[in-house]
């Protein structure tokens, strides 16, 4: 570890994880002097009956839910946010709880900026560290669908990116009743995003012990629990662990530069509408392989997180990197039913793939060239359909 290099690390969130976590929300709200949260949920929450559980959790507390908006669609839309501001003020709310996955969280973050900073057009805040005053208390209750973005310090609204430490949720409440998996495919996709973020955060040349604690924990969780979840989606413990992993990966992601697989995955998602989780999952093994080939360091702690102490200790030092690549491949293979093995099976036209590489280079946050990205993409394209 190059501890000489300066690093800074931050994570705002407090995690409540486990049985009856929801019932702890009122007391947490209290520690912020908040008593009237506005709840923002995605459409599916009501449908899958989670709303009932959530509301019941507030019984016998002195917290009144100022409003339960459960109509967030596929993306965080500025119009929704503006409407929610009216609701927020009308009910005199003093805090925000986001329930569900991505869009709800982003909407909540947008609303929080709007109501806390009193701006009229949040797009003036676009970019990094544009906020300098704390926002209103913001809690999140992720469900199974939420992925490695949602609990990060970033919000994406209408393709505008907002990044600030004040956008971290104050409390992340992981309750097995909420994180239960009902769509395993979706769960796998989000786990893959988390895995990508975690791996690339721990691999990135700027890793530091603090961030490692998070990313390695996330990786370990996923490697231990994704297979369990695949075997039995009803397994609540595994589901909870995956949700936890997502939350931790989000932190690692917030404190490290985005990696190649992440950048390419997003570009492909934008161009073709394929799920980012799928794209990243396909690209990740090849991206890491490429990095190793470029001997951009990939550390053997990784194997420790993937395979546990005994496996790591019993593997001779020089083989560890190879081994952890195999471990990754093994994991992907176990999820083959939901995540195809190569880009070919997504049938993306070559000219779009090139465009993706070009956009990835333009984003420039990882310092790879168009050629590098193309090699990764081509490897991913050629890979055998069965692992």
């Amino acid at each position, binding site marked *: 570890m190059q501890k000489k290099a*300066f690093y*800074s690390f931050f994570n705002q969130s*407090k*995690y409540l*994880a486990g049985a009856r976590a929801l019932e702890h929300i009122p007391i947490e709200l209290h520690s912020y002097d908040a008593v009237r949260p506005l709840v923002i949920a995605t459409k599916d929450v009501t449908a899958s009956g989670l709303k009932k559980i959530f509301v019941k959790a507030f019984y016998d507390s002195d917290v009144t839910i100022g409003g339960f908006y459960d109509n967030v669609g596929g993306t965080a839309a500025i119009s929704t946010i503006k409407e929610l501001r009216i609701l927020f003020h009308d009910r005199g709310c003093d805090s925000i709880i986001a329930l569900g996955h991505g869009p709800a969280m982003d909407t909540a973050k947008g609303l929080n900026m709007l109501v806390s900073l009193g701006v009229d057009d949040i797009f003036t805040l676009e970019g990094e560290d544009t906020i300098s005053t704390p926002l209103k208390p913001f809690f999140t209750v992720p469900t199974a669908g939420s992925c490695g973005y949602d609990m990060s310090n970033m919000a994406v609204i209408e393709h505008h990116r907002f990044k600030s430490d004040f956008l971290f949720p104050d409390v992340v409440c992981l309750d097995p009743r909420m994180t239960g998996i009902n769509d395993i495919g979706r769960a796998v996709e989000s786990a893959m995003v988390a895995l990508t973020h975690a791996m690339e955060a721990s691999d990135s040349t700027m890793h530091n012990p603090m961030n490692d604690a998070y990313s390695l924990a996330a990786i370990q969780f996923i490697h231990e629990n994704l297979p369990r979840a695949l075997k039995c989606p009803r397994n609540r413990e595994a589901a909870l662990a995956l949700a936890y992993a997502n939350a931790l990966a989000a932190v690692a992601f917030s404190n490290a530069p985005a990696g190649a697989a992440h950048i390419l995955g997003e570009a492909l998602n934008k161009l073709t509408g394929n799920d980012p989780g799928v794209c990243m999952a396909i690209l990740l093994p090849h991206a890491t392989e490429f990095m190793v080939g470029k001997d951009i360091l990939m550390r053997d702690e990784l194997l420790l997180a993937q395979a546990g102490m005994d496996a790591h200790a019993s593997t001779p030092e020089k083989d560890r990197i190879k081994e952890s690549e195999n471990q990754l491949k093994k994991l992907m293979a176990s999820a083959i039913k939901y995540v195809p093995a190569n880009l070919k099976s997504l049938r993306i036209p070559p000219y779009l793939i090139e465009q993706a590489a070009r956009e990835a280079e333009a984003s420039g946050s990882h310092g790879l060239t168009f050629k590098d990205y193309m090699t990764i993409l081509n490897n991913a394209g050629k890979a055998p359909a069965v692992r």
Partner: protein
Amino acid sequence: MILPKYSEFCGRVKTLSGASALEAIPGELKKMNSKKALIITDKGVESAGLIKIVKEAISKKGSKLTVGAIYDETPPDSDYKVVNSVASIYRNKNCDSIIAVGGGSVLDTAKGVNILVSLGGDNVLAYSGAGAVKQRLKPLVAVPTTAGTGSEMTLVAVIADHDRHIKMTFVSYFLLPDIAVLDPRMTKTLPASITAFTGMDAMTHAIEAYFCLGKNPMSDTTAFKAIQLVSKNILNAVKNPGDMESRLAMANAAALAGIAFSNSMVGLVHNLGHATGAVCHVPHGVCMSIYLPYGMEYNLHKVGDLIGELLYPLAGPEIFAKTPKKQRPRATIDYVRGLNEELKKATGGRHATALKDILDREGKQMVPRDAIPVIAKNAMGDGAKTYNPEEQSFDDNIMVIEAAWEGKPLDLKKIKKGPKNQKF
């Protein structure tokens, strides 16, 4: 990884770490639009010339930050009167942020001051208790000068009321410092012995965090990393104090351990350690390093596997792989004992491994044998015991302390064992 039925975790402190971490303070404070900082510290730190370094660092060119005032009379255990008076200084000089340079008491004082100046009022005791503070406070930067206590990561402040002879505790997540600065220059001047036991202090935090009742996934990984860093660097840091890299590593380890133990509470070692410190005024870290092996032995039957796992970060994969699973817990404990011995060598015997050979400056014994019952009694009233996997009654305490006094391993048969294999 063990995922407990229910657990909470919060590491809400921005960490700046590196050879030039201090220089980053102005920028970070600027983000929180703060312009004028009050520096709180104590004489020791001042005389070690650390304040000079800090001042130079934060007033380097380009920084908008000015130093409003420096208060360096913080007593070894923080007093509420001091807090109130410092608060008035802060107000008079109308500062808008606090930089605390020093150990636990300095930071506790700073936390108290921060409460007063942010929430108003002129007596800090009005805010004592759990969760009395419910708002974000003014920016507070913690610059630890001993790589060990990890107090820069804790949400508790203990402020004494010497008139009534009580210690008021203040507990709130808003008491966490906004920024913790880990800069090797701050720990460079520590003498070997102190480096040794503060290091072991951090080690103890981490190890106990790893097997005590409040453990949770994140406390595990942080503790794991901390142990790794300490066992890799402590000897080096003691032998050649100038080695910035291992100094920084130790500082990081302390911070990580701080996160770990403030989230998963700590047990017997701290319990007895606190008591011993309170009764015989032995430095915290010394007790820690002595009690650590006993703490593990005492809980062996409940959390043996976890203790076994600890061999990995302590001794490294090779030894771990060589040792068969059944012998790992034992090996871990022996390793810690061994480490203590080595430190004893490295510090020329100043690093004690048994209570009886702790000596003060005049070289007379600090923990007399007849103090043991008093310590045991005192320990019954210390919170840490709650989180120890195994129940500890008065007699248990006596038994453990005696062993530690003698400095010979615990007789496992003597331990009253509850149900095996702790569930989390």
